């Protein structure tokens, strides 16, 4: 199954899990499975219309899905999907 990397800010919603093996054949399927299993993540990943929130970056391996086919991007068993929100901490 594809692996999904969960950022620190979402781990409160995934019971502390940083990596999930999640079924799905597209990026949208995989993220949908995460949201089904951990409903607290849904509103943070998806906007009301079902599209990705603009402030959440999603990568298939090392490539931004915005330059692939977005949520339609096909995912294979060995792939890793990285969820990445901006962080501001510094000072």
């Amino acid at each position, binding site marked *: 199954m594809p692996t999904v*990397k969960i*950022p*620190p*800010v979402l781990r409160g919603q995934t019971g502390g899990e*940083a990596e999930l093996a999640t079924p799905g054949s597209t990026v949208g399927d995989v993220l949908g499975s995460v949201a089904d299993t951990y409903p607290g993540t849904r509103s*943070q990943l998806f906007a009301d219309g079902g599209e990705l929130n*603009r*402030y*959440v*970056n999603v*990568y298939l391996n*090392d*490539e*931004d899905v*915005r*330059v692939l086919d977005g949520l339609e991007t096909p995912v294979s068993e060995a792939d890793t999907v*990285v969820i*990445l*929100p*901006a*962080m*501001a*901490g*510094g*000072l």
Partner: protein
Amino acid sequence: MATAAEPLERVKERIDLIANGKARAEVEAGDAKLIDVREPHEWDEAHLEGAVHVPQGELLDHIGEVAPHRAERIVLYCRTDNRSSRAADALQDLGYDNVSVMRGGIVGWQEAGFPVIAPEGLSPEQRMRYSRHTLLPEVGDEGQDRLLNSKVLLIGAGRLGAPSALSLAAAGVGTLGIVDDDVVDETNLQRQVIHTTDRVGMPKTASARASIEALNPDVNVVEHRTRLDADNILDIIADYDVLVDGADNFPTRYLLNDASVRLQKPVVSASILAFDGQISTFVPYEGPCYRCLYPVPPPPEMAPSCGAAGVLGVMAGIMGLLQANEVIKLVAGIGEPLIGRLLLYDSLGTRFTELKVNRDPDCPICGDAAPEIDESEMGKFPDYEAFCAGTPVLR
């Protein structure tokens, strides 16, 4: 007509060779245009004040820009006077009829005891202090000289800025500016290694200055005891070569991005939370900008502060040192900076992950359709507080 094979003695018969004292008087009076026709490395070593540099091989292509009128008074020089004589001959063929060559070139000039402009080079103390840098062929004297002449601005003297400031100071960055309006507090000491217990209550910029000056007297520290805002940012960043973003809030990060793109300043940007860090280097128009990566900030519940969520001090230090490493590469012109790449560090797993960051053609700041900013709009910025609170902002 001259040919390259023609003996120099014959060429020089057609050239007006003048004494260096006369050349100096003409140039100082503003009566003649002085052109150095040597190669770039010779120019870099030393050249005459007031001279324009056009290597001999490029002279005919560029003379129209340097001296548009053929009647213009021109004095040429090179190392001695051979290349400049051939160059003068070529100019005369083009119709320039008031060209002279300085006899003896820059060698004769220096023998006469006249001044030249030459980089200072490393002092004996600096040669000793930076020997482990200059031993590296990639850095060498030239790279160290660039560091000593560079100006780097740190936004924040906190958990990222503290370790990067110390490393950059040790490395010999000539001018280190620090923007911070906070004072040292006891909770800072767990990670902000530039501050000390006896300086609790002191402005962070002053505490940073004390540590940096104790470490390396070569560094000129400039304190900006303020917060960056739309009114002061252009004035503050204009003088610096590289900006190091360690801000603790999104409005400052977006403001810094937009201002740095306007002034085309590279930004080494890092952020940290809990056990995780991110870093990338944004060089305007060469790679993506911060907005290409993050078009809009997350809502507050997706972006807790370190004050609320905690942060591992050592991880912050590692990210600050990675920033310093990026700065040194940018200044010295070596290696591969993190342009178009985002590096994630997971300190609990000790894992690095590298992601690609693409330029966004629709980026409102650096994209193809981004509006041109003219002089009158240069200092005007949108309301970042509103933008980061999720309120639409009209540009």
